[in-house]
């Protein structure tokens, strides 16, 4: 790692680091979905991770977000190891990572507003007026003002995922993981998502203009080919680093080619 000037500040630790991590499954406690993953994500990176259905993308991100410890190996987030430890020591680091689940995974008994407000109110990060302003800003960002007092059950799936995004951004994480953000969306919704993700990467006012470190998973590389800067693949229980855009396009892996040209399937 190079330091640009002679200032004595040490280099930033990577946003996320997996060292020989073996990743289990949230649903099936006996299964192993990814073996020996090594991954280093620098601050400011924008990763796209491809893989077919059931390749373990969701479990991989759940582990990266710190809710499921790796079965073996280590996970470091912003330089701190997220293994066994006291909750009050690990929690500040864990909250620097946000995760948008596939489908949103909203709390079905709460309204949309309460869902978004829950992390803010639970952690009491702000005074109440400031918190209300933040909740309102998140509703405006996702265009969900009209739904604020409805429950998730009354909502279409594409909007539920937006609530998931608003909720994940509530605590202003520095690293955002998005699980299959484009699944089941129509072109207009997809465009909205791609646009907002680009804005978050570049620095959005909702995050005080600070560029975010991002990782998305998808079963299609096409939307990310010109957006993400680093690429990886989940295949046969292994996590394969592909490199940058040029390496992605040059990859001879048949699955990469398949994931890159998925959109052509739809056009006969």
């Amino acid at each position, binding site marked *: 790692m190079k330091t640009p000037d002679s200032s004595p500040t040490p280099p930033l630790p990577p946003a996320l680091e997996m060292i020989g991590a073996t990743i289990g499954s949230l*649903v099936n406690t006996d299964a192993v979905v990814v073996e020996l993953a090594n991954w280093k994500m620098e601050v400011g990176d924008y990763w796209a991770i491809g893989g077919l259905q059931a390749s373990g993308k969701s479990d991989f991100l*759940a582990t990266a977000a710190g809710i499921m410890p790796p079965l073996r190996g280590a996970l470091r987030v912003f330089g701190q190891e997220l293994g066994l430890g006291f909750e009050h020591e690990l929690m500040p680091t864990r909250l620097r990572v946000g995760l948008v689940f596939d489908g949103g995974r909203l709390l079905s008994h709460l309204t949309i507003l309460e869902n978004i407000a829950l992390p803010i109110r639970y*952690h009491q990060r702000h005074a109440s007026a400031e918190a209300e302003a933040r909740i309102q800003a998140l509703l405006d960002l996702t265009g969900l003002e009209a739904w604020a007092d409805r429950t998730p059950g009354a909502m279409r799936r594409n909007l539920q995922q937006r609530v998931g995004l608003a909720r994940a951004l509530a605590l202003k994480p520095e690293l955002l993981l998005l699980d299959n953000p484009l699944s089941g969306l129509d072109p207009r919704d997809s465009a909205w998502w791609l646009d907002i993700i680009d804005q978050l990467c570049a620095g959005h006012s909702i995050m005080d203009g600070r560029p975010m470190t991002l990782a998305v998973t998808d079963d299609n590389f096409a939307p990310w080919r010109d957006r993400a800067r680093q690429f990886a693949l989940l295949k046969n229980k292994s996590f394969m680093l592909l490199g940058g855009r040029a390496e992605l396009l040059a990859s001879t892996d048949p699955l990469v080619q398949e994931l890159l040209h998925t959109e052509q399937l739809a056009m006969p």
Partner: protein
Amino acid sequence: MEISTRSWKAPLPRSYVDFFGRKLIGFLNIVHGLGAFALITLGVMFTKFRTARPVIHPLVVNQISQSGVQLLPMILFLALALGLVIIGQTVSLLNRVGANAYLGTIMVTVVVRELGPLLTALIVLSRAGTANVIELGTARALGEVEALEVLGIDPIHYLVVPRVVGMALGVFSLTVYLILVALVSGYLWAFLQNVPLTPGDYFRQLAESLRGRDFVLLALKTWAFGVIIATVTCFYGLAQPLRLEEVSRAAVRAVAQSVIVCVLVDALFIVIYLVA
């Protein structure tokens, strides 16, 4: 949460020793899992007593409403029925054989010590406990628990603690109402049957049979029942990965085991009554 209640499935038993051994190991696993879950909940209750009060307090209030206030009409109806049907009959029967002197003792033993708490616990279990397992089991199956964890919210603190507190207070308060109404309506029945017993005599007998320990043990017992119902139902809803189709089976098992544990604890209290 790494609590597993593994059960070993086998075809029809070839050897009954094996069969009972498996059952016994399954039972011990459940006891182990439940015990660990209860201890974790207790730990969280104390360590996070002051955490996120603006979020947790409304949940506790809501739970008290669900497993207390909303059940009040049903409890009052049952108390009335209990008083009229059972207590009234006992009163008139005792009168006929001239055993009026034992009336207070019998009322206190039957209603205050045994029937009141147990009946209330069963009502709370059937109305609020089942809702609990289904609500939590569905949340677990749909991945809402992981969503909480990712937001740095302890699922035990957010989902279990309010239920334990609410149910303990719910069972306690409802038992008090049940006992009061049952005793009064019991006298009403006796009065309608022209039993020669003045209200003064009736309540004096009751007061003489009640001891200080009855009040203490009643409180402890009803709190214990509330905590047991909440813990067992939350354990079955939350503690292991569930698929949607398994929720109904989890509910059935949770209800059955809540009843068993409540009755066992009730038996334990009889021992305390005998010793004290």
